[in-house]
């Protein structure tokens, strides 16, 4: 019995290791976007978040039964991030560090992970309209504060919403 269990555990560990080898790069990038840390330096908060999510996936491995371990880990990552969102409010110099943690989470799930709006809403326990609003706000905020000129200047684009728009002159405005 003990032998069989240890054999099963070894197989389980091998499968898990293969999964991590394939998915860790993308998952760590997602975690880094969530915590607001820059990608060029080591990101300890993102690593910790990912480690906690991955360890849960390891513990649930036998119960996944055909579920995608990547989606499972991403869901754990989102849930853990929601629980610890207060710790990630402070800007850390990353791409999304000016957004609120909830806006970051919605933006990353929708546009980096390509999760549908309804699915994002269900996963976060929010109404779909709220997800839509958060997303629009995050998009506006991100574009209005982006450093550097736009890749394709738009003459007739609507001005981005948010309180910060008045301070930065828009070079593309007519």
């Amino acid at each position, binding site marked *: 019995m003990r032998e069989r269990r240890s054999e099963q555990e070894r197989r389980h560990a091998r499968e*898990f290791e293969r999964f991590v080898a394939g998915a*860790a790069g993308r998952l760590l990038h997602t975690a880094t976007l969530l915590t607001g840390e820059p990608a060029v330096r080591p990101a300890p908060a993102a690593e910790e978040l990912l*480690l906690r999510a991955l360890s849960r996936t390891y513990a649930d491995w036998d119960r996944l039964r055909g579920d995608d371990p990547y989606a499972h880990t991403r869901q754990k990552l989102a849930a853990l991030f929601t629980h610890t969102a207060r710790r990630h409010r402070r800007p850390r110099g990353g791409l999304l560090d000016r957004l609120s943690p909830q806006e970051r989470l919605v933006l990353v799930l929708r546009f980096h992970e390509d999760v549908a709006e309804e699915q994002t809403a269900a996963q976060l326990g929010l109404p779909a309209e709220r997800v839509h609003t958060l997303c629009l706000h995050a998009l506006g905020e991100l574009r209005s504060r982006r450093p550097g000129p736009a890749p394709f200047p738009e003459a007739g684009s609507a001005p981005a919403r948010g309180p910060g728009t008045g301070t930065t002159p828009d070079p593309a405005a007519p």
Partner: protein
Amino acid sequence: MSPADRKETEVRRMLAGPHPLVPTDLAARATARGRRLMIHRRRARRLGRLLALLVLAALVWAAAAQPWLPSPAHTTPRVEGW
């Protein structure tokens, strides 16, 4: 392409930016933590099962022994009214 689509495409491109380096021992650390979590869960499950069993045993005993009833008298009460 609508302005909203263009906005989304632009943000997607921004999000796809440089990826952080994955530490080489990430899988090993996650495995070690996951194993600890499993052991912890297994222990909690066993403790829960043991507690449930104890509660069940206590209920069965109580139903059989009915300790809340007064114990039967050992002497017959005095007979009066003859």
